[in-house]
Each structure stands twice: as C-alpha cells, then as structure tokens.
C-alpha cells in the first residue's frame, strides 16, 4: 500500500515536472513549478525528512513561486521579445537522458556505507534535533557561508537597479484598497505567521523547524504585509535595514571567533552553553534570513515613474 502511494506521488512529481519543462507557455510552466514544489514537499514527508519537507514547502512552493510569478508579470508588462532561437534539442535530450541513466545506474551500484554517527555526539551539541545539530554545530561553517551566500545574492540583485533608481525604495510600489479583502488579509495573516515563524525557530532545537524554515515563513509574512501596503518598502540606504541583513552572519561569525578567543577551536560551542548559544545564533539568523529573502523576492530599487 505504501508502495502504491509512493508510486502515485512520484508519478505526479514527474508528470508535473514534465509539464513544466515541455508544456508551451511560460505562465503554465511557472504554475506547474509551484505545484511541483508542493508534491516534492509531500515526497520529503514520505521519506521521513520532515525538516526538508518544511523547507521545500516554504521555499519551493511558496517563495520561489512568488518570485517567478512576479518576474513573469514584469516581463509581460515589458512586452519583452521571446522570439526563440533554434535550440539544440537533440543534444540536450541526449545529455539529459545520459545523466538520468547514469544516476539511475549509480543507484544500483552504490555501496551502503555506515554514515557518521550523529546520534552519539548529539548530547554534546545542546539540541535534540539532529538536523539542527548538523546545521548549527557539526557543520556550522556551511551554514555560516550559506547565510552569506544569501547576502551576496541580495547584493547582486540590488546591483540590477538602474542608476537613476538607486535611491528609490526597493521593489514595486505595492498598493491596496484600505478596506479591501487584500488589506484585511494583510492585517490578519502577520500575527499568525509571526508566531508560527518564531515557534518554528524555537521548536527547531528539539523537533521539526529551524532558522531557515522559520525565516522563510517570516519572509512570507513580510511580503504579505508589503503587498497589502501595511509595510513600506525600505530603501537601500536605511541603516536599520542593513543592520538587520548582517545581524545573523555577524553574530554567527563573532560567536565563532569568541571561541577562538577562549582558546577553543573556531566555531566550537562548549556543551554547557551550546543550547543557549544556538538559540541566540538562530534568532539572529532568522531575522537576517527573513529580511534577506523578502528583499530578494521584491527585487532591486525601482522608480515606477522614472523622470518624475
């Protein structure tokens, strides 16, 4: 029975992906990609990777979807030229087929080694969720670099503003009818989203959740609030904004260096304080991730009416 369920799920995943790649029309591809994220999240749930399912649901089905929808809308309004050049379809199909076959073959050829024993070292990490332990303790350097990757992407997106728009607020000038359902939704959702996001960060230490998932939910809240015109889009020059962006990576880096100052290894957390240290780092990271992700989605500074 579980096999039937998994087969059906995988068939849906593949079908939706095929539709996103092969179907005509960009909008259709975008919508199929959004549903794709949803099915993959269910797939992760089936695999028992609940933290990944959460990340995929929040990012794959949520934020990436908004990002692509907004971009599609902009391209449509620009009436951009999509005249297609002939593409090397056959060689692309061969490359794709070859890599799929190679990976499929590898699956049956892979030995099954014993993975590193996370459970044994878990008591010294200060957290009960092994995924959080890996992210914030065992492989903290990855997570630190990753939070900086987000920042680099945001800087890159900011650099795409026109010079004349540089001092304008970021993203589109969202507006909504003050007594309309959108504004109502925008007022109703943030309290729930905010508490849920904070819950995810706090709960992530012991069960499903974590800074990235919580940060993504909070980014969604920020986006809804902006779209409902409850939150003004910031400008690049705002000091508070920049402080929020660097807070997480900064706290993470400095706490790692503090360990060096105390004569321990870089990024090490002594078991006695690990739990509180991780919560502080995660709280700071969550703020930065939420702000960075929301700003990544709304895009660079733009002046809707240039020349005014």
């Amino acid at each position: 029975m579980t096999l039937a369920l998994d087969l059906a799920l995988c068939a849906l995943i593949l079908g939706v992906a095929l539709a996103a790649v092969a179907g005509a029309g960009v909008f259709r591809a975008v919508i199929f990609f959004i549903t794709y994220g949803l099915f993959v999240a269910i797939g992760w749930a089936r695999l028992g990777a609940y933290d990944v399912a959460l990340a995929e649901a929040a990012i794959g089905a949520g934020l990436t979807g908004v990002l692509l929808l907004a971009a599609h809308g902009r391209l449509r309004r620009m009436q951009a030229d999509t005249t297609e050049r002939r593409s090397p379809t056959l060689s692309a199909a061969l490359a794709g087929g070859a890599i799929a076959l190679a990976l499929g073959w590898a699956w049956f050829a892979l030995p099954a080694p014993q993975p590193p024993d996370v459970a044994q070292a878990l008591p010294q990490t200060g957290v009960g969720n092994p995924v959080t332990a890996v992210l914030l303790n065992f492989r903290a350097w990855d997570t630190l670099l990753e939070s900086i990757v987000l920042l680099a992407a945001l800087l890159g997106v900011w650099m795409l503003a026109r010079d004349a728009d540089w001092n304008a607020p970021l993203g589109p000038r969202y507006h909504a009818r003050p007594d309309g359902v959108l504004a109502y939704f925008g007022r109703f959702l943030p309290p729930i989203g905010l508490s849920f996001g904070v819950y995810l960060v706090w709960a992530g230490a012991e069960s499903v959740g974590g800074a990235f998932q919580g940060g993504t939910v909070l980014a969604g809240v920020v986006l809804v609030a902006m779209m409902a015109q409850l939150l003004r889009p910031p400008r690049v020059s705002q000091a508070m904004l920049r402080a929020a962006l660097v807070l997480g990576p900064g706290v993470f880096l400095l706490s790692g260096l503090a360990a060096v100052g105390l004569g321990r290894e870089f990024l090490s957390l002594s078991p006695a304080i690990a739990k509180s240290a991780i919560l502080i780092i995660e709280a700071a990271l969550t703020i930065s991730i939420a702000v960075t992700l929301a700003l990544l989605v709304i895009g660079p500074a733009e002046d809707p009416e240039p020349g005014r």
Partner: protein
Amino acid sequence: MIFDLATYVLTALGLVFFTAGTVGLIRFPDTFSRLHALTKADNLGLGFIALGVAFQVESLAQIATLALIWALALLAAGTVAQLVARAALTTSQEDE
C-alpha cells in the same frame, strides 16, 4: 472504536467533496462558475479531512493545529478566490 468510525466517515466525506470540487473544476464551462464551485468544495473537503483526522490525535495541541490549518486555508481560499475573481474580471483573457 467510535472515534475510528468517525474518522472513516468524515475522511470519506472529505474525499467526496474534494472529488466534487475537481469534477466541477474540470466540467464547468467558464472561469467564474469553476471558481465558485471550487472554493466551496475544497474548503469543505479539507475541513472534513481535518475533522476526521482530529479523532486520531494524541494531544489537544494537535487539534488546535488542525483547526488553525483549516481556518488559515479557509481565509486564504476566500481571500484569494475573491481577488482572483476580481483580477479575472478586469484582466480576464486567454493567456500565453
């Protein structure tokens, strides 16, 4: 035992509503009637599924979460349906 029975009945009902919604989505002739049929059906469907599953929970917090999920889905679906209908009204067109 009686709880299990409730789960069977309620989830089955939920499934029926979801199916009805999908059939409406496929069969109804125009965007607005599809929209209309859809929002009713999937909200009820999700509600029955959540209610059915609620008879299996281990703690009150889980019931609260289920209720929250349903409330959120209701609110989101209502808002979105209204907005999409408006958007379709003002900009409705064959796409691509």
